[in-house]
Every structure is written in structure tokens, then in C-alpha cells.
């Protein structure tokens, strides 16, 4: 049963991988699924910049996702910690406000966001994509739950032993490492596949993210070989897959930690 499911899930990816080595004619022939030869011409075309500046766009994506992961995790983690461990005036109000951010769909705020970035003169720069993704209501909620499970006596101990409040936060971080990594992983994958915001904010071809670049190939009425698209998709998958493979163990332990509580 599990095997059947595995095959079912893996099939589209395998098909994509195989298609990236085929000519269009071979792609539209259902069998055989595997290519006749491992012909890297689509990959070569992709890197030559013949259609789109693929390497450049790939690096754009990497930079944007990395920055968004770092900043987003840092902000969500800090906010969650404060909401979980401190009492202050207006806490409930702010908390509800942060939660509301989850409920508002991106599409609703995209126009004001565009105006805003325009005013800040950040349009068509990576920052126009990075900044909106750094504030995450879900992330704050996630870290709120994580830090609430952190025993208070540990923090009190650290205070008595001489840690100031800022120091305390960094003392607490290693204790939630699995949750931290799990969130960073999700944040990376989310920002890697983000479509709407880069589509709106970026315009120069050399500044596009890789998925917008690829979809522009498909959308324009260019005669782009499908094999090339598949090659681009295959490569685009790699960072997320690598990141996931590295962080999967932590992700699992963070989730099991949540269910234990």
C-alpha cells in the first residue's frame, strides 16, 4: 500500500526528470517514459541564457529565500517568545492583531503593498519581495506555542545566574532548536515557491525569481521546448529538496514535541 502511494507521489517528479532529457516529440509519446539517452541539451540551453538568464534568476531566488528565511524566522521567534513569556499592556490586542494577519489573504494586501514599495523606491529590487514575507502570523503563533512549553524555572534560573533579558532569549534558543529549524524549513520552501509577490514586485528579467522566470517562458508565446521547462523545474526543486532532507529529522522531532505537550 505504502509502495503504491510512494510510486503515485513520485511519478510526476520522475516524469518531469525524464522529460527534461527528451525532445518535444518524445514527450508527447506516452511510452517509453524514460528517455532514450541522457541528453543534457536542455540543461545546456538553460545555462547558456539562450531563453532566460537562468543562473542569475536561480541566485536571485536563493538570495531572496535565504534572506526571508533568516529574517522571518528571527522575527517570528522573537515575537513568539515575547508573547509567550512576558506580560505587558496591550498584549491581547497585539496578539489578536498578529493572528488577524494570518486570516488576511495575500491578494488583498498586494495593492497597498505595491504602493508602499513604490513609495519606498524598492520596486524591482529583491527587498520588495523579501520584506513582506518576513512578518509571519503563523510563525509567531508557532513560536508562541513552542516557547509556552519551555519551563519557566529554566528562565528564572538563568536570570538568577546572571543572564539579562536579551541574553536570556539567546540562552533559550538552543532549547527550541528543532522547532527553529522546522520553521526555517517551512519558511524557506514557502518563499522559494512564492509566486504572487515576486510577480507583482519584480519586472526586469535579470531580477526575476526562478519560478517567475520559468513561468514567463511558458506564458509568452515563445516556442520553448517543454524539455527545457522540465529541466528548469528539476533544477529548481533541488534547493528545497536538499534543505528538506537536511532538516527533516528536526522537523519530525519538533512536531512530536508538540504532540507530547
Amino acid at each position, binding site marked *: 500500500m505504502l509502495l503504491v502511494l510512494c510510486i503515485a507521489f513520485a511519478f510526476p517528479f520522475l516524469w518531469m526528470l525524464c522529460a527534461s532529457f527528451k525532445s518535444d516529440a518524445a514527450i508527447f509519446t506516452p511510452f517509453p517514459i524514460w528517455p532514450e539517452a541522457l541528453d543534457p541539451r536542455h540543461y545546456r540551453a538553460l545555462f547558456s541564457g539562450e531563453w532566460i538568464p537562468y543562473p542569475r534568476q536561480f541566485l536571485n531566488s536563493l538570495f531572496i529565500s535565504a534572506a526571508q528565511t533568516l529574517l522571518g524566522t528571527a522575527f517570528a521567534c522573537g515575537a513568539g517568545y515575547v508573547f509567550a513569556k512576558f506580560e505587558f499592556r496591550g498584549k491581547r490586542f497585539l496578539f489578536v492583531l498578529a493572528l488577524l494577519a494570518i486570516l488576511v489573504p495575500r491578494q488583498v494586501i498586494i495593492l497597498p503593498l505595491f504602493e508602499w514599495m513604490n513609495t519606498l523606491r524598492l520596486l524591482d529590487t529583491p527587498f520588495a519581495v523579501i520584506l513582506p514575507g518576513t512578518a509571519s502570523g503563523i510563525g509567531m503563533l508557532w513560536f508562541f506555542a513552542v516557547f509556552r512549553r519551555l519551563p519557566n524555572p529554566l528562565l*528564572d534560573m538563568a*536570570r*538568577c545566574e546572571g543572564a539579562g*533579558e536579551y541574553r536570556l532569549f539567546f540562552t533559550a534558543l538552543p532549547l527550541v*532548536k528543532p522547532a527553529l529549524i522546522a520553521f526555517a524549513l517551512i519558511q524557506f520552501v514557502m518563499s522559494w515557491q512564492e509566486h504572487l509577490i515576486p510577480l507583482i514586485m519584480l519586472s526586469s528579467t535579470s531580477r526575476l525569481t526562478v519560478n517567475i522566470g520559468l513561468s514567463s517562458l511558458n506564458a509568452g508565446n515563445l516556442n520553448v521546448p517543454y524539455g527545457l521547462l522540465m529541466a528548469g523545474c528539476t533544477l529548481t526543486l533541488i534547493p528545497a529538496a536538499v534543505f528538506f532532507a537536511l532538516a527533516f529529522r528536526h522537523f519530525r522531532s519538533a512536531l512530536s514535541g508538540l504532540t507530547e505537550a
Partner: protein
Amino acid sequence: MSALILKNISKIFPGGTQALRDFNLRVEEGELVAIVGPSGCGKSTLLRIVAGLDEASSGTVHLGDRTLDGLHPKSRDVGMVFQSYTLLPHLTVGENMAFGLKMRGISKKERTLKAVETARLLGIANLLERLPSEISGGERQRAALGRAILRQPGIYLFDEPLSSLDAQMRLQVRVEIQKLHQRSPVPMLYVTHDQSEALTLGDRVMVLHQGRIQQVAPPEEIIRRPANTFTASFIGSPGMNLVRGRIETVENSVRFVSPCLNFNLLPDQAAVLRGCHEVLAGVRPEHLSPDVNGAFRGEVTVVERQPPGCCLYLKNGNILFAVRTHEALSVRTGETMSFGFDRTKVLFYGTESGELIGSPA
């Protein structure tokens, strides 16, 4: 080194619960005051206020002539041992013990040196490289104790440090705390809900109830002359038997009269109680002994074995009382027994105030 002085401390929680009421205490250098009381009596709140983890609603905390009010815990120079182990799971025992020194920017070399020295003192030198998850509960609590000792703080605060340990570990760690107490000339506050711990460790024992000090006195005095009915019935296992009765003067003798207990007062008791109408007479369970002509009489309802002795609960009318003997008695529930007592050991309390009647002796 200097004394810890608490002046007029009150604590009201945001919900309106009053945890401490006008609390005053002075703990001398090298003195250990054990604070005991039922849960929710405010004893942990008191420690947290001294440590700076909670803020008092009013009142001041001084260490010698230095005021601690408004200071962050890190600047108060307190060493606190918590009920849970509070070791950081990703650090080794050694690193945990030296955590406070690290926070103060002491070099790694010196930290290691100190940790080894302290660990030796506590008999855990062989565990320094282990992670907290790899050692037993008693060892963890000794490591936590070590962490507090290492910095040689100006005050020690213990928040039920033994209550998460099993009986054997409890004894071991208790001995370590005793040793620490003997060699450290600083004030110590020790919170527990276990009276035997309080009576063993405390130079003075403070009984706390609903945020008010019931009595602060050396352990012997707490046992011998509880200042009020709360302390009398809270301390001791079981607590003191309290019987409500009248004081009557018949001819030349003054008598205590109640439905289940009648006896003539001794001359000094009579002198003190003259003019009182109703009082509570208190007799400790261990001061009662089987006596066919004894004044206490009742039906045995429960027999508890406490080798080598035993503990009986008797009922007379609607009055329950407890008896503790040093030797086992062969009694069964349902039997009626009489017990006598040494009248010099009876204490009297006011029915309204609950306070001990008579001059402190």
C-alpha cells in the same frame, strides 16, 4: 556578608489574590530560615520576591545596607535552587554548573577549575562531562546545587529543592544542603511543604498561612509551644489534638470541662486561665499514653502502623483525636480505649483568636 532584611512586604496578584500581607523578617548571616506552610500560603512568592523574579506590591528587601528593590535578578547576587532540576539540556553538567560564571564573563579555564572543585565537594566530579539526561534525579539536583554554590552568592534561596526526588536521594541532597549551610556565612531561605525537612534544616522555622507569618521560632519551640492553633495542628504528624472546653472553678480547684475530656488544671495554668470562659486545650498525639484511668476516652476508628510504634485515631462523640505511641499496641478498630497524659504538657488557646494563652516559656 550581611543579613537579609524584609520589611513590610505585601504582594497582591493582578487577580486580587493577596499572597503576602505585611511581611517582616530578618535572616542573619549564616542562618537558615525554613519556611513551611500549605500550598498557596505564599512561601514561593516570598522567595521569588527576594530573588527579584516577582515584584512586591509594597515593602523593601535589603541585603545588609544594600537595597535590592527594583534590581534585576542578575544583579542581586542570589543563588537559587528550584524544585525542578533546571539544568540546560544541551550543556554538560560541568557547563551547567559554571553557567553563572559564563554569564559574568569569567574565562573558560577558571570556570572549569571552579566546576571541578565544586563537583568534588558534592561527589559528582565524575559526571562533569555528561549531559543532564544521562544522570539521575539526585545527581541533577546536586549539580543544580553546585551551580548555586559555585558563584558563592550573598543569599541562598531554596524552593522545595527536594520535593521531586525519591526518599533516598532526598536524604543525600539534604545532607549536602546541611554541609553547605555549615560552611556558608550567608543568609538562607528554604521553602518546603515538608515539615520534617523544615524542622531538620532550619535554624528557625517559619510557619506561613494565607500570606501571614504564624510563627517564627527555633524548631524545638515550634514543636513545644506552637504560637497558635494553626501551627499546632499543622506541625506534627498528626498535628496537635485540640479540644474545646470550659474553664470552671469548683470549690478550690479550677477544671477544664468538655464532653470528652475533664481534668484539674495545674496551679500555674489555673493562674493564667482565670477569667477565661471557653478555651481550646491542646495535647500532642505523642504525649498520650494508654492508661485505664486516663481522661481521654474514645472508640478506635483507624489504626496506622508506624513501626516501631503506631498511630491511632479515636472518636468520642463528634470529636476526633489522634494518639501516637512508641510501641505497637494490639488494638482493633471498634475497641474503646482510655489514654492519660502529662498535664504539664497541655497548652491552651483562645477560641476566638486561636492564640496561645500564657507567657512564652
